[in-house]
């Protein structure tokens, strides 16, 4: 290899300097340790378990967002979709005793249908994704409002609560963590090693070139938005099981759309598309959850929380553009 080609290949095996995962693990551990010194309560098993569980819902939603951003899209509607799924599943369980497997079906069906709607608007009608999903953001939020009709979920049946908090078959690991592991493995495999995932990245690199190379770009776009919707609704279901509650502001109140974008970017996915880091997204969610919980422990007024999230996005995007600008 000549001196001019000294830059390491980005895909499929990044060089060590590109290993965001290690940096994220180190930074997360360091922040947790630092907060622990100030307030030892932070490092108890219960609290760490809380921090981890808290990041699971965001991780699941953000993995969908990662797929979308990798394709050079954006999905703002994940927040209201997550809320809609939590509300519909929770209310059906609370008032009609819908069994858990039924709720899983309902959540996935809502996600697929509404995610596909996003995809069709973007791909077939050629509306820019930021406009499309800003529109459906309001639409899906409105659906939650209509469906809930002033009520809210404050208690779910025991099967739901068990699914949200305990491990299956008496395992010590809570089910949501296992679900996340499965979803992460699937996304990692898809983006790194499946034709579908590589096509997603090709579209993110250069949609016109991907089309000319023979990819069905419109179909891929629709599939990715459908997957994003699916994961947002899965996240909503896990949320209602885990917390036992859902209101009309679930998802949107915490700005899950921004959080999911932030963690995807912090995790190493390029805002300009074409490169994704699945594990990075999960670790960045864990980092965000650590920081947000730490702020509570440090008694920082909640008003500062979103400022912290905003700072994180800026830092992440800045890092991403610097690398993009460094291209030969």
């Amino acid at each position, binding site marked *: 290899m000549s001196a001019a080609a000294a830059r390491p290949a980005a895909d499929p095996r990044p060089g060590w300097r590109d290993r965001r995962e290690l940096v994220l693990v180190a930074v997360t551990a360091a922040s947790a340790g630092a907060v622990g010194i100030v307030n030892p309560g932070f490092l108890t098993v219960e609290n760490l378990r809380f921090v981890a569980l808290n990041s699971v819902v965001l991780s699941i939603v953000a993995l969908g967002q990662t797929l979308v951003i990798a394709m050079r899209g954006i999905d703002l509607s994940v927040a209201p979709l997550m809320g809609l799924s939590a509300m519909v599943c929770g209310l059906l369980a609370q008032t009609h005793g819908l069994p858990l497997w039924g709720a899983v079906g309902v959540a996935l069906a809502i996600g697929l249908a509404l995610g596909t709607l996003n995809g069709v608007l973007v791909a077939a009608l050629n509306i820019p994704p930021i406009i499309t999903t800003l529109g459906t953001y309001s639409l899906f939020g409105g659906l939650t409002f209509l469906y809930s009709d002033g009520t809210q979920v404050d208690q779910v049946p025991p099967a739901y609560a068990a699914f949200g908090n305990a491990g299956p078959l008496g395992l010590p690991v809570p089910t949501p963590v296992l679900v996340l592991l499965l979803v992460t493995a699937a996304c990692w495999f898809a983006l790194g090693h499946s*034709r579908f995932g590589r096509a997603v990245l090709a579209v993110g690199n250069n949609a016109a070139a991907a089309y000319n190379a023979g990819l069905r770009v419109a179909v891929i776009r629709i599939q990715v938005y459908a997957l994003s919707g699916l994961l947002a609704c899965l996240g909503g279901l896990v949320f209602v099981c885990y917390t036992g509650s859902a209101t009309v502001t679930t998802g949107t109140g915490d700005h899950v759309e921004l959080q999911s974008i932030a963690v995807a970017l912090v995790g190493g996915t390029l805002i300009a598309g074409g490169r994704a880091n699945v594990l990075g997204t999960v670790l960045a969610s864990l980092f965000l959850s650590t920081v947000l919980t730490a702020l509570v422990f440090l008694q920082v007024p909640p008003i500062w929380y979103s400022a912290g999230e905003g700072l994180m996005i800026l830092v992440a995007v800045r890092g991403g553009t610097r690398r993009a600008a460094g291209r030969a």
Partner: protein
Amino acid sequence: MSAQRDADSAMPGFYAAQGIRKSYGAIQVLKGISLDLKPGRMVTIMGENGAGKSTLFKILAGQVPPTGGTLRLAGAPVALASPSAAHARGIYLVPQEPALLPELSVAETMFVGALPTRGGPLGRRVDWAAMRARARAALDALELPIDVDRPARTLSIAQQQQVECAKALLRGCRIILFDEPTSPLTSHEVEHLFSIMRRLKADGCTLSFISHRMDEVLEISDEIAVLRDGVLVDVVARPSFDRARLLSRMVGRPLKAVPRRAASNARDEVALEVRGLSDGLRFADVGFSLRRGEVLGLAGLVGAGRTEIAETVFGVRPAAAGEVRLGGAVVTGLDCHAMIRRGLVYVPEDRARHGAVLPMTITENVTSGLLDRVRRRAGLLSARDEARISAAAVRDFRVRCAGLDQPLRELSGGNQQKVVFAKWMTTGPRVAILDEPTRGVDVGAKEDIYEMIDAMARDGMALLVISSESEELVRLCDRILSIYEGRVVAELSGADISPAAVARSYLTAAAPSGGVAA
């Protein structure tokens, strides 16, 4: 005759266009083209910028639907709904602007849309090992020494083009259309490409090719089709090629040939002086001085470091050592904005990546170079001024367009190049570095650009011209520096300048005693 054609047209690999028409809105780009592509033959398409050559190829390759007409493959009508449909039928278009997937590896860009997979415990997965091996084999078969693991964004234009050729073969496509593959290549690389094309032809592939370079067209073609304003005005088969006739059919007017410029316009005052410049990587110890009104050429192979030298002088690449003086003042290390303010501009060779803003209109592109100046004057450019400036540019550079408000994206490749060139020239620079100024520009417009360069030199502008076409340097330059592997190895001036001398100057540089430092 016609019975013979009917029999031929049923052959596999016989690809015919019949009455192909294409309109964009009210503009008719193709007005009923009928053309036969035959196995084992090379049909070349020539024509001015904007004549409709690329559009025809895109239709043949399923990238753009025709407004009317039929395509027949081996005698049977085919409808190509998408590029993948064309690939499935063995038709591949090597595009005019190679399309990069910057974050993917070279191997993967070659296989996009057709990644090899193998079974695994988790279902079918991409077979990276097989993909890399096959990519490497395809590049090796064409004797292209490109590392398949490099990110595609690190490839030069010439390499991107080469990778595209290998890609066509990889997909087993036997009808291959090349849209101006040679315009970014040097004569050496063109020979390489032609040897590949000859091999494909001998193997029975159906080939077609677009080029503005008459010499190479005469060398490689079996048939030449001339397109003018969307009409096929001439189809001639070897051996009845006739250069003068082709030219006049193409342009529709007789062309005067000016082989070498008459006299130098160089004045005494030095405009740009470069001393001992190195970037510590691609070139070292480069020095020259450029006087007002002088045209200095940089000759060399693609990859010799000429673009890197230009970029370093212009301030977009850091210099490791050396000095750049502009009108006597040291400007080394200033960024390109400062350079532009001081009257130095650089017109890059790769308009797709730098310079051209495709979604913006012609006027916006032409005047974008002026905005900085306007802002500093705290004034505004009136719409009327903008229109006047861009109308002048469109006229001077013979840009073929539907109107000044047409987005650049809709212009043909050569016309985009002219707009980028015009943009920099309207800023009225004192020193201009032109990197491959006529890449992709047709014969008629080429001569126009040469005349403009002459005129600018007469007005006292100092010009540094990088070109891979020896004839172009001979036509334009007062003096030529030959660059080999990042060093100045020879200087030619006055009567010493001839195409043969230029080519010899860098080709013999490989021998240790061959160089004479300037």
